[in-house]
């Protein structure tokens, strides 16, 4: 069946900010879909609140709306654009849930918008537990014995141990495994709260069974293909997103695999997914072969992104084409060009995905893995054998030393892993012990591991293998195990094999180093930058080669670069690729810290770093050098000292004066960064770090400014001056920020500009630089300079309408700012970036903002004034500000003077004010009417406490600033309750002021597309 001709325009919904369970895989799938829909002549409209996505680039769709992904936000866009169809299957659970809400609210009918990709009844049948169970049973298959619970008193028929799964939440959020009846009750209560339809499933425990997933695609002709099978190493009980997984499945016989294949085909038909991809999960008892169907996602998912990268089969592209009427036999396989999409991929290699955790960011949080996903990213390894793929994935996680993570060392095998995998790992050990380099390499060991095992160094191993001519060879991912000639440009390395020849060099080459697995502090923003770097260098006439190991990203789409090497980002693998490619230059400024850590090795090996040289990085990171430079330039930094060890730190702090900020070098996301007010806090902070550490004066009550600028070595272009909403001390990644900066005096603005213009060339920047400054009492301090692309680059680019990465690449390629002749940014709207925090995933960790970054993602909102933009950003971040109701205030003593005006404003807006005694006294003294509620610690047995108030839903807004660090008293209980009850909880006074200002002044305003806002396209 050919493409439908009765629809012309399609609106695609993205997945919003990066959260645990929903990351950049949906940017990858959305981009693929937009690409093919546009190629096919459809007018495309995209809605997504996440600015750090490629899909929201102005060139990717005809109209781009960076708007909140809620019914109001999307309805606004639909009303304006009147698309013929809405495609919700590529934006994760967020888009799917929104589609249902839009359909139910009648908006789609009213506007005549057809839902394509998945009908409402199909989504329901897959997502609603009882409907899904019926569908599965109609195929003669079984789901785990279970009970739908919509209120806590229905508990009973299924005893513990049991699994709790809330309906319609992402990544199993709100669910869990209950060992005892008490736990069961608690988890069900939480699940009911989390589920938007107040429904959870309590099911028989199949903990310990093997877990498999199949990626299935079906078309309108009822053709079904299985793209990939995935086996989880961690058995049932651990969320698949947190599990180490392998593709293709390794332990099932043909008859057992075909049983799952048949089941998948039957289920996709019974559920009725007609056009597109689905992911179906199975549990299988290793001994009896019994099978249970666990769940199905009637959409493109994290696993399907992994399956696409694992096989080279572009599931999202296919799903988009199927949604507009094509059938599988009409879609050619991109890699082979000759075989159709109905050719099931067959692999002659193995892939292993490792989850990346960030528990070190959430002290106090429970680190045991369960049915609720906790990992923040993933890395994938490709090898010719299981162990080779395993060791690549294992090493690609870029673990920080000492980080708490499952499978921290090779021998840390989790419980319940299938004996086959254990035997393979034992085999890898034996190969390492053989003392034969080639055997060890073929088993997957890196030079450093071999060196360590053999009592020598990685360098010696490298020299020894060079002497024997042992080098990696590169193999193609072609989806067909070599059966059909493929022009694929997607490679991985292996050992002891023939190399698949490189195409002849017709153009100069550059290699762009990616950012590796997503983690807190280094996420999708950097992949966005890398993708733009690739695009720019291609446009400049280079062959752009990408190296990365993150399967979720756009950068690892084989379509993005001229050649993709799916490899760990460690010196051995990266240098081997450079040796093969012999590039003219290597680009390291866009992938965050990962490529910067490699830059030294790259330069030492004789390759040219393009743009900003390595010396600039040292100059910026080495505080002695930076301090000297700042002095020379007459730029003020807060007093500082570099120290090693606690005693030096204490001595330094005595000289500098408290409060001080402790910060290790060469880290992203403020890892282990702490504000300390006294010796005790300093001792504690120092115990978490090692080596040389910077201790500097923490500038209190300062306004923090973030500047992104371009420099060609001499001249500087100031692209974006952004003001943080939260005061200095809150990590820039976690703070909301506003562009243009709203409260800079002209004098300060000029000084900021002057500082940046002196500092960037002095550092030697050729490309992007990010400078963070603090302004206190009209004095401007430089906090730090980062001579690389920063996290704010995508936001700034979209706010000002200038592609900063493109400009930076041109500078790196030798152009000057004069050549680029960039327009002075004059944004017509105010843009706000707001962070999204994963605290709800980490019960036990204090949900308070601080100098260590903990957000997973961000949203952007633009409007004609700050309050409107801010209110919209909060909505987009999933914490809409209440218009009225009850506000609870409890602030520390420092903040008491400033809380008065906030409370007065809230009272003026009709809020009822409630506070605990100290804050209440302050407010009453100022003449405000305040209801008082007891602190938890002080409450009499039957007295209502603030936590009860919150838990009962009698509170709509919470303003609670922490009482210094470490105090796990009331503040923590309040914030935890707020999180549980999903009440907006603001933990800084400046944040509270911005929120109140927004509540008071936000206006209803029609959304503008990005194209209109930045004046391109019409």
């Amino acid at each position, binding site marked *: 069946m050919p493409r439908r001709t009765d629809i012309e325009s399609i609106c695609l919904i993205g997945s919003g900010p990066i959260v645990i369970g929903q990351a950049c895989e949906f940017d990858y799938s959305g981009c693929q879909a937009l690409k093919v829909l546009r190629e096919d002549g459809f007018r495309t409209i995209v809605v997504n609140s996440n600015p750090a996505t490629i899909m929201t680039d102005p060139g990717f769709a005809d109209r781009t709306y960076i708007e909140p992904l809620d019914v109001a936000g999307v309805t606004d866009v639909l009303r304006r654009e009147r698309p013929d169809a809405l495609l919700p299957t590529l934006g994760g659970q967020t888009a799917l849930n929104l589609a249902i809400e839009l359909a139910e609210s009648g908006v789609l009918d009213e506007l005549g918008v057809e839902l394509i990709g998945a009908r409402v009844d199909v989504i329901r049948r897959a997502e609603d537990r009882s409907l899904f169970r019926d569908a599965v049973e109609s195929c003669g298959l079984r789901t785990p014995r279970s009970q739908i619970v919509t209120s806590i008193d229905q508990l009973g028929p299924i005893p513990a141990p049991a699994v709790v799964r809330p309906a319609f939440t992402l990544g199993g959020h709100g669910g869990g495994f209950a060992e005892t009846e008490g736990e069961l009750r608690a988890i069900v209560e939480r699940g009911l709260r989390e589920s938007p339809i107040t429904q959870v499933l309590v099911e028989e425990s199949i903990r310990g069974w093997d877990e498999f997933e199949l990626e299935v695609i079906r078309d309108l002709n009822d053709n079904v*293909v299985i793209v990939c099978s995935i086996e989880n190493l961690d058995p049932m009980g651990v969320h698949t997103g947190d599990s180490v997984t392998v593709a293709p499945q390794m332990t*099932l016989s*043909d008859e057992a695999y075909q049983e799952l294949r048949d089941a998948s085909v039957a289920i996709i038909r019974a559920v009725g997914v007609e056009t597109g991809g689905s992911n179906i999960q199975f549990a299988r008892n290793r001994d009896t072969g019994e099978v249970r169907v666990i769940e199905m996602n009637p959409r493109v998912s994290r696993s399907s992104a992994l399956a696409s990268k694992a096989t080279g089969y572009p599931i999202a592209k296919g799903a988009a084409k199927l949604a507009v009427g094509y059938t599988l*036999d009409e879609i050619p396989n991109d890699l082979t060009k000759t075989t*159709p999409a109905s050719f*099931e991929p*067959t692999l002659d290699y193995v892939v292993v995905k490792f989850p990346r955790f960030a528990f070190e960011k959430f002290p106090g949080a429970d680190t045991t893995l369960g049915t609720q996903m906790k990992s923040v990213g993933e890395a994938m390894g490709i090898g*010719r054998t299981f162990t080779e793929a395993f060791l690549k994935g294992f090493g690609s996680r870029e673990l920080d030393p000492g980080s708490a993570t499952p499978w921290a060392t090779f021998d840390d095998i989790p419980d319940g892993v299938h004996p086959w995998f254990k035997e393979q790992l034992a085999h890898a050990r034996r190969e390492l012990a053989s003392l034969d380099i080639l055997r060890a390499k*073929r088993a997957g060991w890196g030079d450093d591991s071999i060196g360590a095992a053999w009592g020598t160094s990685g360098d010696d191993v490298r020299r020894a293998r060079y002497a024997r001519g042992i080098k990696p060879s590169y193999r193609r991912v072609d989806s067909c195990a070599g059966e059909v000639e493929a022009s694929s440009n997607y490679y991985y390395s292996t050992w002891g094999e023939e190399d698949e020849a490189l195409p002849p060099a017709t153009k100069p080459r550059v290699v762009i180093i990616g950012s590796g697995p997503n983690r807190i502090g280094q996420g999708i923003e950097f992949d966005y930058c890398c993708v733009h770097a690739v695009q720019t260098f291609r446009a400049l006439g280079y062959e752009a080669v990408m190296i990365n190991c993150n399967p979720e990203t756009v950068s690892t789409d084989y379509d993005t670069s001229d050649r993709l090497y799916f490899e760990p980002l460690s010196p051995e693998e990266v240098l081997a690729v450079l040796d093969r490619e012999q590039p003219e230059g290597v680009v390291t400024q866009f992938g965050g810290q990962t490529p910067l850590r490699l830059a030294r090795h790259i330069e030492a090996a004789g390759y040219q770093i393009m743009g900003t040289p390595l010396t600039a990085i040292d100059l910026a990171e080495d505080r002695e050098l930076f301090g000297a430079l700042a002095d020379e330039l007459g730029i003020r930094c807060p007093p500082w000292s570099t120290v090693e060890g606690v005693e030096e730190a204490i001595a330094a702090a005595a000289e500098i004066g408290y409060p001080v900020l402790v910060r290790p070098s060469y880290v992203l996301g403020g890892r282990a960064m702490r504000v300390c007010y006294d010796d005790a806090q300093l001792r504690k902070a120092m115990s978490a770090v090692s080596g040389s550490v910077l201790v500097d004066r923490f500038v209190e009550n300062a306004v923090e400014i973030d500047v992104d600028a371009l420099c060609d070595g001499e001249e500087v272009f100031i692209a974006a001056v952004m003001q943080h909403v939260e005061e200095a001390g809150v990590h820039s990644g976690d703070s909301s920020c506003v562009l243009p900066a709203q409260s800079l005096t002209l004098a300060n603005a000029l000084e900021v500009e002057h500082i940046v213009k002196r500092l960037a060339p002095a550092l030697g920047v050729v490309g992007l630089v990010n400078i963070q400054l603090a302004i206190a009492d009209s004095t401007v301090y430089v906090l730090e300079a980062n001579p690389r692309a920063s996290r704010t680059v995508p936001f700034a680019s979209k706010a000002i309408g200038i592609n900063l990465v493109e400009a930076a690449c041109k500078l790196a390629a030798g152009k000057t700012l004069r050549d680029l002749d960039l327009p002075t940014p004059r944004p017509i709207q105010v843009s706000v970036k707001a962070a999204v925090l994963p605290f709800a995933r980490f019960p036990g960790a204090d949900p308070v903002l601080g100098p260590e970054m903990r957000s997973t993602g961000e949203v952007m909102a633009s409007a004609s004034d700050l309050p409107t933009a801010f209110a919209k950003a909060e909505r987009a971040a999933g914490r809409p500000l209440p218009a009225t109701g009850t506000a609870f205030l409890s602030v520390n003593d420092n903040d008491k003077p400033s809380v008065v005006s906030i409370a007065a404003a809230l009272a003026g807006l009709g809020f009822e004010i409630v506070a605990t005694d100290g804050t209440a006294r302050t407010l009453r003294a100022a003449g405000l009417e305040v209801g008082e509620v007891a602190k938890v610690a002080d409450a009499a047995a039957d007295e209502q406490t603030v936590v009860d108030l919150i838990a009962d839903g009698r509170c709509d807004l919470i303003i609670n600033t922490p009482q210094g660090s470490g105090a796990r008293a009331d503040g923590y209980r309040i914030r935890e309750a707020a999180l549980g009850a999903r009440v907006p909880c603001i933990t800084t006074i400046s944040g509270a002021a911005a929120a109140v200002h927004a509540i008071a002044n936000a206006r209803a305003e029609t959304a503008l597309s990005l194209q209109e806002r930045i004046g391109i396209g019409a």
Partner: protein
Amino acid sequence: MTVGYIALEDGTVISGRSVAAPGVAFGEAVFTTAMTGYQETVTDPSFAGQLVTFTAPMVGNYGVDDARLESAQPWVKGVLMRRCGGAAWATWLASHGIVALEEVDTRMLVLRIREAGAMRAAVVGDESELDAAAAIELIRQQPAMEGQALVSSVSSVEPTRFNEEGRVRVAVVDYGAKASIMRRLKRSGAAVTVYPHAASADDLAGYDGVLLSNGPGDPGPLVDEVAAIADLVGRPSVLGICLGHQLLGLATGHSTYKLPFGHRGANHPVLERATGRVLVTSQNHGFAVAATDEREATYVSLYDGTVEGFDYPELNARSVQFHPEAGPGTHDAWPILERWVEGLQPA
């Protein structure tokens, strides 16, 4: 650890570790892309005389089980793997005298075969026993697969009852039949009797249906079998599978030819013309029936457009090139066997 190698007639030599029987095995080097079902593959008589390279990276992971046998013994002469995934599998191969290597650059082998076509080759279990130059000399003295009639070496000798009970009676002509065919026929309600390849039309004519099975080698030299089929068609209902499809084609005036490197795997998409549906099929063949203007193919390979099935309504016969019985592979085409049995009328 014994180092062995595979040598191809074009002079390519690729080394590996010997994991099963010692010795030297000559045969045609082919590859299969099926990711599961190694034991089914090597016991499929259609692989007789071949040295099979598994493109799957890990082979032997889930052990061995007699329930997975497609015939009483392995028919492949040699097995090439990137990595052997289980000791039980290696032991089983050794117990059947099969030479097998792991740590082989299987992808290189596949690319050679894809470019040069299936080749004569030898697997040498121990490189110290035969040097590569000598092996290549010997390989070049071996007969090519084209023109080889291998059916008599794999077929049963006497008619045997596979099962007694059934709504209809079906005869399977065993050119190298896979057990999965008989099992599927039985499951579909047929009482199955297996006849040797030399069965005459009269032996078979009394059955409600006759299934012409798969089998190894070139259909060209099988003139007696073709003559018997020509004599048979038009009497009971006939269904041909794989080699059976090719023989039926020859018996009805079609021609066959050797594919460059064959179709061997479990992921081959085939278009079912009557419904417009795509079946993902299990395939294992090195020869094919040539397309003709006179008869439209009922099934077409979506991979290279070759004929995957014919219908002969005037003769009450039909045939498919792929393996509807699976084993190993997908079950998408099971209905072809099931519908055929359902459509048979008891005499």
